[in-house]
C-alpha cells in the first residue's frame, strides 16, 4: 500500500469517526432530553472524535516516514559481513549505493553474493516497512478514535477543545514563514560554511579572478579554480545601475504625471497598462533582450563604429530597467498621493507653478518614500535572474564598459547548479556562497527600505 492510498484511507477513517462520534452525542442527548442538554453542538463531538482518530494517525505516518530510511539502513549495515561493515564512510556509502541499485532492479555487473543478498534484504525490508506502516497508522488511528469516542459525555467541552486545536493549526500555518526564512538561512549558510573551509572567505569576497572550473585531474590546465567574486559583484552592479538609470527617471516622471497632471480617465486607462509590464514573466523579457534588443544594439553600435558584444551589459540592463519601471512608478505614486493637499495649496498660494510645486514641495516631502521605493527596486534588480541568464554573458570580465559582456551573481548560481552535480565540490558550493551574499544584500536593502518608508509614513499620519 503506498502512502497516498494510506492517506486516503486515514481520511476516510476520520470521516467515519466524525459520523459515529456525532451519532453517539445525539443518542446521549436523546437520553437526557434533547440537544440543548449537551455542552456543545453535535458537530463538535463528531469533529473531536475525527481529530482523535486522524491526528495521531498522521503523526505516526510522518514520524515513520522520517525515520524508516535511517532504520532500514542501520539494519542493512548490520546484515553485511564484518569486513564490509568496517569500511570507511565513503566506501560504505558506495556499497550501499550499489545495494540500492540491486534493490531497484539493475543488478547488472554485480556479482558479490553478499551484496546481492543485501539487495534482496533491502527489498524485503522496504516491503515490510510499507506493510508495517499501514498497520501501525491504521490501528493507531482506530485505537485513538475509539478512545475519543468513549470519552464523549454530554458535559464534555467539545467545542472548546476543537477550537483550541483549530487555533493551534492556524498558528502553525502562520509559522511557516519563519520556518521558510530559517530554512533559507540554514541551507545557504551550511553549504557556504563548507565552501569557506576550502576557499578562504576573504579570497572569495575580495578576489579579482573568477573561474570556478575544478579540474578532475590535478595536472590539468587551470586545475585549481579561482573563486574571487569581485567581477561578479561588479557585473551585477553595472547591470543594475543601467537598469536604475532607465527605471528611476522614467518611473518617477510617469508617477508624477499620473498623480499630478493626468485626469482620472487617462489615469485609470494608463496605470493598468503600465502594470502589465510588471506582470510579464521575466523569461519573456530575457528572450526579448537576447533575441531582439541585444542584436539591435550590436548592429547600431557597428554603424557608429563601436565594438559591441552580443551579450552586452547594456541590453540586459535596458530590458531590466523597462521591467522595473512599473515597480518604481507604482511605489512613487503611492507616496506622492500621500503628500497632503495642504502643502500643494500653500505653494500655489505663493504663486508657484505646478511644476515648481512638484519639484520644490511635493518631491522633497515624498523623498524618503521614493528613496525607499528605489532601494526596493535595486534589490529587485540585483536578484533578477532570467533576463541576465539569457542576455548577459558567462565570462567574468571586470569592466565598467556597458558595451562589453559581464556576468552576474545570479547567472553564476544558475550555471553552477543546473544539471546533476555533486554536493561536495567547491564549484557547486560556491553557488551557495553567492546565494548567501545575494540573500544578505537584498535583505539589508529591503530592511532599510521598509524602515525608511515606515518612518516617512508616520510623519503625515
Amino acid at each position, binding site marked *: 500500500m503506498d502512502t497516498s492510498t494510506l492517506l486516503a484511507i486515514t481520511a476516510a477513517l476520520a470521516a467515519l469517526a466524525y459520523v459515529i462520534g456525532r451519532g453517539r452525542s445525539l443518542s446521549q442527548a436523546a437520553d437526557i432530553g434533547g440537544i440543548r442538554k449537551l455542552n456543545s453542538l453535535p458537530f463538535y463531538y463528531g469533529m473531536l472524535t475525527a481529530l482523535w482518530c486522524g491526528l495521531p494517525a498522521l503523526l505516526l505516518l510522518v514520524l515513520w516516514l522520517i525515520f524508516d530510511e535511517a532504520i532500514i539502513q542501520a539494519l542493512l549495515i548490520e546484515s553485511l559481513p564484518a569486513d564490509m561493515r568496517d569500511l570507511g564512510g565513503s566506501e560504505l556509502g558506495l556499497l550501499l549505493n550499489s545495494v540500492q541499485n540491486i534493490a531497484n532492479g539493475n543488478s547488472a555487473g554485480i556479482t558479490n553474493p553478499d551484496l546481492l543478498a543485501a539487495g534482496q534484504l533491502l527489498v524485503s525490508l522496504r516491503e515490510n516497512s510499507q506493510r508495517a506502516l499501514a498497520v501501525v497508522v491504521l490501528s493507531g488511528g482506530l485505537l485513538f478514535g475509539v478512545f475519543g469516542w468513549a470519552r464523549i459525555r454530554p458535559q464534555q467541552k467539545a467545542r472548546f477543545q476543537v477550537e483550541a486545536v483549530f487555533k493551534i493549526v492556524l498558528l502553525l500555518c502562520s509559522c*511557516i514563514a519563519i520556518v521558510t526564512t530559517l530554512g533559507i538561512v540554514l541551507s545557504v549558510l551550511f553549504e557556504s560554511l563548507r565552501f569557506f573551509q576550502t576557499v578562504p572567505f576573504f579570497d572569495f569576497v575580495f578576489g579579482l579572478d573568477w573561474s570556478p572550473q575544478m579540474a578532475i585531474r590535478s595536472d590539468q590546465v587551470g586545475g585549481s579554480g579561482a573563486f574571487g567574486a569581485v567581477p561578479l559583484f561588479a557585473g551585477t552592479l553595472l547591470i543594475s545601475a543601467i537598469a536604475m538609470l532607465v527605471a528611476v527617471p522614467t518611473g518617477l516622471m510617469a508617477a508624477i504625471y499620473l498623480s499630478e497632471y493626468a485626469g482620472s480617465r487617462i489615469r485609470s486607462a494608463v496605470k493598468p497598462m503600465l502594470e*502589465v509590464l510588471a506582470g510579464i514573466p521575466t523569461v519573456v523579457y530575457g528572450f526579448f533582450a537576447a533575441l531582439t534588443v541585444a542584436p539591435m544594439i550590436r548592429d547600431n553600435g557597428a554603424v557608429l563604429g563601436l565594438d559591441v558584444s552580443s551579450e552586452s551589459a547594456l541590453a540586459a540592463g535596458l530590458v531590466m530597467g523597462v521591467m522595473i519601471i512599473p515597480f518604481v512608478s507604482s511605489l512613487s505614486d503611492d507616496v506622492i498621493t500621500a503628500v497632503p493637499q495642504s502643502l500643494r495649496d500653500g505653494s500655489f498660494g505663493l504663486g508657484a507653478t505646478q*511644476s515648481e510645486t512638484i519639484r520644490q514641495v511635493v518631491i522633497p516631502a515624498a523623498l524618503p518614500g521614493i528613496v525607499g521605493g528605489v532601494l526596493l527596486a535595486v534589490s529587485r534588480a540585483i*536578484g533578477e535572474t532570467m533576463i541576465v541568464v539569457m542576455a548577459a554573458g558567462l565570462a567574468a570580465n571586470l569592466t565598467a564598459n556597458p558595451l562589453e559582456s559581464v556576468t552576474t551573481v545570479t547567472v553564476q548560481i544558475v550555471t553552477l547548479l543546473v544539471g546533476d552535480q555533486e554536493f561536495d565540490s567547491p564549484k557547486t558550493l560556491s553557488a551557495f556562497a553567492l546565494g548567501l551574499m545575494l540573500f544578505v544584500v537584498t535583505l539589508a536593502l529591503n530592511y532599510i527600505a521598509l524602515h525608511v518608508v515606515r518612518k516617512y509614513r508616520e510623519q503625515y499620519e
Partner: protein
Amino acid sequence: MNKSAEKTIDLVNRNLAKRYRAEKRFRFYGLLSISFGLLCLLFLFTDIIGKGHSAFLQTYVALDIHFDEEVLGIDNIDDPAQLMVANYDGVIRKALRDQFSEVSSRRDKRALYALISNGAGFDLQREFSLNPRELLGQTRTFWLVADDDVDTYLKSYRGSGEAFTGRLSEQQRGWVQTWVAEERIEKRFNRIFFTSGDSREPELAGIRGAIMGSLFTLAVTLVLSFPIGVAAAIYLEEYAPKNKWTDLIEVNINNLAAVPSIIFGLLGLAIFINFFEMPRSIPLVGGIVLTLMTLPTVIISSRAAIKSVPPSIREAALGIGASKMQMILHHVLPLAMPGMLTGAIIGMAQALGETAPLLMIGMVAFIVDIPGAVNDPATVLPVQIFLWSDSPERAFVERTSAAIMVLLAFLIIMNTLAVWLRKRLERRW
C-alpha cells in the same frame, strides 16, 4: 518702496514666460516617460507576435503513398506488433523516389529524404493501424509533416524577397519548388504544437508536456498555498496577540515577499533534493518551492481582505452567541472570500511565470513524455521557453515566441479573472 515693488513685478513678468516654458517642459517629460513605457510594451508585444504568429501554421507535403507489403515488411496483417514496427519510413522514401525518379546517388537520396520530417512515419503508422486491411497494397495521398528547414524556407520565402535558406541546398530548394508548383505543399494549422511534448526536431516539438507540467505544478501550489495562506492570515488578523512572536512572523512575511526567487530555488535544492532526497524535475517539488515563494503574496492579500470586513459584523455574530471560530468560519471568511481568491489568483499568475527557482530543482531536463501525475518528471511553460530560446534552429525561434504567446494568454486570462472577481464580488462597506 514703490520702486522696489515695481521691480518685483517686473522680475516676475520677465521670468514668467521662462517659468511657463519650464512648466511645459516638465509636463512633456512626464508624457514622454509614460509614452516610453507604453511604447516598450507595444514593441515587446508586436515583436513577439510578429516572430511567433507563423508557428501556428506548419508546412505539410502531399505524397502518394503506396502501402507495399514488401517495403513495409508485413507478412501477417493481424499481428499488431508487426504493424508497430513496420518500415513506414521506407514507404515514404519510396514515394519520394517515385516522384523524383531522376535522383540516383546516395547523397542526393539522403538530401531528398531530409525534406520530410522524421516524425512523418509515426503519423503514417497511426493512419495505417486504423484500417490496415483496406490500405495494404493501395496507394493513397497523405499530407505529411515537412522538415523544419522546408518550413522555415517557405515561410520566409513568402514573407519577403530574400528567402532564408538555412541548411537547404539549391537542389533541395528545387524539389520544394516543384512541390509548390504542383500544389503539393500546404500550410495547415500546427496541431502538433499543441498536442505533443518536447522534441529535438522543431517541427515535432510541442508545448503540451510543458502545459501539463505547469498545470500540475500550479495545482500543487494552489492546494498548498491557499489553505495555508488563508489560515495564516486568519491567525494574524483575528487571533494573534500583540507580542514579539507575532512581530517576528510579520517581519518574516514581509521579508520573504522581497527575497529574490532564485533563493527559493537554492532552498528547494538544499532541503528537498539534497536533504530529503526527493527526486529532481517533478512538479511536486516545484509546487512546494513555488508555494513557499507565493505564500507571502497570498497571506498579505488575504489579510487585507479580512481587514476589510467591518468589525460590526464580528460584533453582531459574537453578540448572538457565536464562538470566535464560528464567527470567523460563518461570517468573516465568506465575506472576505472574493478578496482572498483575487489574491490567490494573482499569486498563481506569479507562480506560473516563474522560472529561476525551477531551474535549480532540475525542471530543465529534456522531457519528451507528457507528464501524467505530480511525480512524473516534467518541465513547465516558462522553462520550456528558456530551453527553446537556447536552441540554434531558426524554427525554434518562432516556436519560442508562440509558446510565449500561449503563456501570456494564460496570464492575461488569470489577471482578467482576478479583476473581474474583484469588481463583481467584492463588497464595499
